[in-house]
């Protein structure tokens, strides 16, 4: 009870409430603008939080996360362009609704569904996280190593381009992680005598570079593209009670679906949204209406993608494993403010955990109010010229990178990370595993070596633990399955090509 009251006082005070409001507004704006991601927004705002206490700092970042996830529906509905990847499924029925003159209804229902999904996932997170953390407290170095390798390999393996490219990305990220001081014996590694590199590559600096700078380069290259056809005279209409009743069970099912998907590393908003859309269509009395402006086609994906926010925080808070780039950035934020995610967080910082729960609830409620009544303003933001937004991003990147450690060297690292991130994207090598390697790599190496130190170098420690064997086995199976699927797909494509060539040559 004492911890709850303490958490309440950390979250319900003018500083924290203001941080949530600012975070939600910034998040909705960033989420609404196609091409900007709320992950990038969180990364750029992270340096702003250094002067804040932990809970208001996380309130700002969580506000951006939740607001951003909701804000993606604005351009999805009005422009037919998803503001965030998670809003891609919302386009399918949201934009047709706008074309039929029902934009206000779609926007209003989208925000109600989003907040409902966010709150349900918060409840699930509160129920499950502490249980999971208690279980994880019994883990030793071998179990932690196996668990983190499983989470990391899952993300590398589930890569939009190929398993090989995903693993290459993970390996490159781990290599960058080793630069600096060895975590066990403290000798310099790959620093080549540079004192600046002794501290290694800072996670936040790398994230600013790899998420924001490629976006800047793309804006430079596509400066002539404009977004048009936007009606700025629109407001969000609250759904009727009948519409809410009709969609209540759909919202509940999609909220649970989104929470479950969010808890699995490597998935996230887009997967949850499309699965929810498909579910909504299958269980609808009128599936033939989907795609031409059916309200349930907006309800399903918007509930699920916001439910992902709570689900993704479950493995982050209880196990210290971020499941996607956004929670990886959140982890960076927690670490900077002295809160180490993982089982010990629930043992040693329970008031702060309650503070986070209350903050998430507040962020959902603030998003509801801000988006319902501020929609006219957000719609105008969509017309902001890209050049001014990009210029501001360039300045924020420079400042953000510098203020982490008051180091100009970090500004250079940010630029190099940005170029590296851009080149990787052009080569269809995913960036997410690189970032996750920087987050999880230290744990992977340290726990591996600690396990061996405890057993005087015997690798049997990884095979004597049921949990370790389970997770290592799942890792091998998962990568093997992904590789097998990719090979089968390539074989089918080759066969189809050969058949086409045979037909053409006849």
């Amino acid at each position, binding site marked *: 009870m004492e911890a709850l009251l303490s958490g309440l006082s950390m979250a319900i005070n003018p500083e924290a409430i203001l941080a949530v409001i600012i975070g939600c507004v910034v998040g909705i704006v960033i989420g609404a603008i196609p091409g900007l991601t709320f992950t990038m927004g969180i990364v750029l705002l992270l340096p702003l939080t250094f002067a804040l206490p932990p809970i208001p700092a996380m309130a700002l970042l969580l506000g951006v996360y939740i607001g951003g996830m909701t804000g993606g529906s604005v351009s999805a509905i009005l422009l037919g362009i998803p503001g965030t990847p998670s809003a891609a499924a919302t386009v399918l029925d949201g934009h047709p609704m706008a074309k039929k003159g029902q934009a206000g209804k779609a926007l209003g229902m989208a925000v109600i569904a989003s907040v409902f999904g966010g709150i349900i996932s918060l409840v699930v997170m509160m129920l499950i996280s502490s249980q999971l953390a208690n279980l994880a407290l019994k883990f030793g170095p071998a179990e932690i190593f196996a668990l983190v390798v499983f989470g990391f390999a899952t993300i590398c393996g589930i890569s939009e381009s190929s398993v*090989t490219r995903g693993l290459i990305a993970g390996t490159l990220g781990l290599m960058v992680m080793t630069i600096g001081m060895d975590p066990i014996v403290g000798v310099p590694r790959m620093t080549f005598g540079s004192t600046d590199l002794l501290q290694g590559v800072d996670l936040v600096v790398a994230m600013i570079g790899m998420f924001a700078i490629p976006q800047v380069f793309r804006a430079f290259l596509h400066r002539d593209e404009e977004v048009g056809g936007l009606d700025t005279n629109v407001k969000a209409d609250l759904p009727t009670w009948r519409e809410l009743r009709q969609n209540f069970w759909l919202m509940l099912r999609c909220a649970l679906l989104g929470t479950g998907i969010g808890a699995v590393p490597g998935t996230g908003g887009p997967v949850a949204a499309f699965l929810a859309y498909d579910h909504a269509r299958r269980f609808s009395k009128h599936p033939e209406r989907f795609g031409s402006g059916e309200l349930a086609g907006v309800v399903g994906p918007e509930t699920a993608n916001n439910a992902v926010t709570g689900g993704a925080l479950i493995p982050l808070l209880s196990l210290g494993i971020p499941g996607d780039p956004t929670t990886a950035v959140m982890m960076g934020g927690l670490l900077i403010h002295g809160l180490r995610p993982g089982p010990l967080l629930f043992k040693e910082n329970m008031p702060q955990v309650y503070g986070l729960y209350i903050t998430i609830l507040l962020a959902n409620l603030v998003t509801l109010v801000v988006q319902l009544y501020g929609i006219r303003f957000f719609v105008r933001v969509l017309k902001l010229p890209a050049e001014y937004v990009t210029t501001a991003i360039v300045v924020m990147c420079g400042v953000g990178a510098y203020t982490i450690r008051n180091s100009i060297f970090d500004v250079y690292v940010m630029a190099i990370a940005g170029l590296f991130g851009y080149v990787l994207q052009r080569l269809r090598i995913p960036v997410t595993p690189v970032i996750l390697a920087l987050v999880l790599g230290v744990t992977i190496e340290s726990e591996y070596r600690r396990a*061996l130190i405890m057993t005087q170098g015997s690798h049997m420690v990884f095979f004597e633990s049921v949990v370790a064997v389970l997770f290592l086995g799942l890792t091998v199976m998962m990568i093997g399955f992904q590789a097998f699927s990719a090979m089968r797909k390539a074989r089918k494509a080759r066969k189809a090509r050969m058949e086409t060539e045979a037909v053409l040559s006849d």
Partner: protein
Amino acid sequence: MAKRTDVLLGLILVAVAGGWITAAYLTIPEANIPGTPGPQAFPLLLGLALALLGGWLAVSGLLHRTGGEVAAATEQRDPGFLQELKVVGTGFGLLLVYGFGMDKLGFLLITPPVVIVVLRLFFRERSWRKILANAVGLSIGVYLVFDVLLQAHLPKGDWIQLF
């Protein structure tokens, strides 16, 4: 016809891995607890993993076959490649200059010129009123938020200390 990009990328990764392994072997001191992996172990393992993955990428690129005409078309250099190289290279250079300028001149002196270059050179903005308003407004705005409000202390510069 092989997937040329994958072959080239694979070979580059193998070369990078070779350099990494050499550097790790020669520069990381041995300081391990007997019987357990030392500080060299992980970097060497990662170098080996990258070499294997790069090699596999190159081999699978060589084994990949496409239709002749289609392959010829897709293997041609993208006509915008040189333009992309120029823009990205210049953008990267500008970021390095921004860092150098922050160090030597300070945030308030280097930021306006950088904003002007971005708007004029990259976005071809013609209105000098808008350019200057952005340059000054953004610089002062960010300075007030970070340095004054949040006490984050932006760089003052080694050569000229404006404030």
